[in-house]
């Protein structure tokens, strides 16, 4: 099925670029030596021919929207086309909510997606985030591409929170040990931050030295603080695309933390990030009957 939507995607991209409706289409192209896929910035109708869409398209391209050069392009009044799966589109919604992009600055080519392959291209099983995915059809798009009746498509079986729940079910000590071991590998390369579409601050709090809430030196000190504060900064904003985990060169499952917190936030405040551009982000408001039993 992918092939069919792939051709329709190219066609759509060509049209958009040919008519000048957009200056660039951010999508997926064939990877080096035909291996897998990599982000492709198609600036012309011909380049649009190189666009692909298949099970390897795990990247969340929304990351590029709030960063250079797309940001500049949009500020100059240009329009950016972007290929977005459900999860990617959720990220775009958050960017809209937070005023990082303007609605008419983007043309979202929404892809009906039945799941993509997880990190490590050789295994064939779907990424965790795809299991029981709630957004087979993107919550936001200008063009929707998907075979036949979108609603017919179904996400892979399974519980997206399986790994999270596994972790939560462990005794607290074991969780502590797990993270101690995992985070001890962290080299503060901040790849997780760079990969995250929600981390668009030009100067991140981690760069701040007056005061220095997060110790910067390449030393394990400050690692836990970094990951805690990162998680809090993503709470109620993380769309669970898992890019942070995928980006980690030390294979630390950082996405586990933000996906866990996203689930907790949804449970407590009935808010799921990136579903509705009109919704008030969960930490910009409050409920008088929010849970408060923990307060003495």
């Amino acid at each position: 099925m992918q092939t069919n939507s792939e051709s329709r995607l190219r066609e759509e991209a060509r049209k958009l670029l040919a008519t000048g409706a957009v200056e660039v289409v951010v999508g997926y192209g064939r990877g080096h030596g035909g291996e897998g896929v990599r982000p492709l910035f198609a600036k012309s109708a011909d380049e649009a021919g190189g666009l692909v869409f298949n099970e390897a398209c795990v990247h969340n391209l929304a990351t590029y929207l709030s960063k250079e050069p797309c940001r500049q392009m949009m500020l100059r009044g240009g329009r950016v086309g972007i290929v977005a799966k459900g999860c990617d589109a959720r990220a775009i919604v958050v960017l809209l909510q937070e005023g990082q992009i303007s609605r008419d600055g983007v043309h979202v080519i929404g892809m009906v997606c039945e799941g993509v392959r997880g990190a490590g291209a050789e295994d064939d099983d779907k990424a965790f985030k795809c299991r029981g995915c709630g957004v087979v059809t993107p919550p936001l798009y200008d063009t929707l591409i998907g075979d036949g009746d979108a609603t017919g498509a179904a996400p892979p079986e399974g519980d997206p929170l399986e790994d999270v729940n596994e972790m939560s079910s462990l005794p607290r000590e074991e969780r502590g040990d797990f993270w101690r071991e995992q985070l001890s590998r962290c080299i503060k390369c901040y790849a997780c931050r760079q990969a995250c579409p929600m981390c668009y601050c030009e100067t991140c709090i981690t760069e701040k030295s007056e005061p220095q809430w997060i110790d910067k030196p390449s030393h394990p000190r400050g690692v836990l603080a970094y990951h805690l504060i990162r998680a809090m900064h993503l709470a109620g904003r993380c769309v669970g695309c898992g890019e942070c985990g995928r980006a980690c060169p030390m294979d630390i499952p950082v996405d586990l933390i933000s996906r866990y917190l996203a689930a907790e936030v949804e449970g407590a405040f009935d808010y799921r990030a990136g579903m509705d551009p009109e919704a008030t982000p969960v930490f910009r408001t409050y409920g008088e009957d929010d849970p408060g039993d923990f307060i003495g």
Partner: protein
Amino acid sequence: MARIGVFVCHCGSNIAATVDVRAVAEAASRFPGVVHSVEYRYMCSDPGQKMIAETIREKDLTGVVVAACSPRMHEPTFRRLAEKTELNPFLVEMANIREHCSWVHDDRGEATAKAIETVRMLVEKVRRNSPLEQIRVPVTRRALVVGGGIAGIQAALDLVNAGVETILIERSPSIGGKMAMLDETFPTLDCSQCILTPKMVELSQHPLARLYTYAELDGVEGYVGNFKVKVRQKARSVDHDKCTGCGLCIEKCPSRVPSEFERGLADRKSIYVPFPQAVPDKPVLDRETCIWFTQGKCGACREICPVEAIDYEDADEISEHEVGAIVVATGYDIIGRSLYGEYGYGKLVDVLDGLQFERMCSASGPTSGRIVRPSDGEVPKTVVFIQCVGSRDDSKGRPYCSKICCMYTAKHSMLYKHKVEDGKAYVFYIDVRAGGKGYEEFVNRAVDEDRVVYLRGRVSRIYERDGTLFVKGADTLSGHQIEIRADLVVLASAVTAAEGARELGQKLRIISDRYGFFTEAHPKLRPVETNTAGVFLAGACQAPRDIPDSVSQASAAASKVLGLLSADELVREPLVARVNEDLCTGCFACEAVCPYGAAERVKREDPRTGAEIEKAYMNPGVCEGCGACLPVCRPGAVDLMGFSENQIYSEINVLTESFKVEDEAK
């Protein structure tokens, strides 16, 4: 280079008894940046203060920590002292070693250790204090009063008489409000009109007063001292500059509609002046009912008008004004009779509400003061007054007491007895609440002198037969069911928030309670202020109020305004949020969480593209310094003066450093 002075207070024995003050001073002397550290019996005493002042000068200190009582106690004292010595007051901090230390601990060792750490924290903090200047906001010396009832009139009069130009807007065609409808007022029974109209006239003729009647508040921008308000002058279709108020148009107008002012007991014309003493005494044309506007013909008023003042093309006009303060005095309404089926759903013509009865008693009213039955014009020989209709009634009405009904019902029953000597008056009540000067006596007069029969109980049903009203109720004191055959029934309907109050509140960014009454900043200590600086409350828009309360509250609000406008500049504590635009991402989480609307959007040029982008700006005139915007600002672009990131960080840091020292000791 920091030059900090530490002054440790004994507070007599209050501190010294539990804390080794000498040890504290001694330890403090070794803290980085500390150039002077002493202890003394009473730092707040004159000699104490003199000592501090001299030290500041001699050692020219860049910061002071007074280790003594709670800053909530003496911070102002020592900051004032600093000011006198040309040390910026915000370079003074207090270490609370009394309330938080000596008074709550027994162990001298522990208390001393804690005192030392506390001082250490404050020293670190003060090292990062920056001199702050009081924020001076220019003040527009002009006030706006919303609502032209007695509260609004009184507030406006106090203001103009104090020399403050005041704009008053009233949505009906005349000022006067509910009080203008009243006949006589409790507890003195003096004529409402007689005491009100002089005030109306005085205001309308005052050179500093600008009246906008038949007008509404369209929008409010800005902040305390600097509001920009839009006033919508609804189209009157009558040019008041030309109009002489001769009234010919009113005579000629063929269209009659029930008069709001007479509460439906009489008609008015479509072009009308609501009541004889109206201010201004010039008509407006009600387009809802005017034949010209509804059927496109007639035009009688335009033909008859000798000065061509009638203008069917007249349109709403919006004028903008700058004001420094706003007084809200939008008054109240009363609950609809249609709510009470047992009292005939408002279909029984001889069942009146309190205001209708007032109009009936009024010499200038529809019956020229004769009390008659609307159904047949007969003089009622038996009148039943029912209190708490909709008040203290959770199920259908309001749970609160409407406060004024007990008194005006007593008044009504009296007025009736005075006009109909042989008449019988019954009052059904739950309690009689007559708190107020001369109030209890007033009610007693009704009972003792005017022989009004008070029955404790509710009325379960009123039905009409052959022109007689059958009033069935319980007398809970005698425990009997009673049925009274009455000619007229008067309901003391609950006082409710004025229609549209909530919407107005949103425009003004002030809070309404669940019933639509405006919420004061503090129920006891700030009763006429709101949570929005520069906006004040007067009268029944805040809660049910009688005339004396409304008037005194109006004067209170006016004096608050005068205080605010007394200086050309408004001085505010500089402990406010500031934005580092280089870090701001323009996500405006701050805007969402700021309870004061201090976070504004300012246009900036994007350095790379030259495109226009938005950054956050915290308006120091509005910011109250709560710091809610800091935690939601991920890049830390916002900071809070006086409780800055650096200051708090350093407090945490130094505190926990001392933990490490302990660790190493182990």
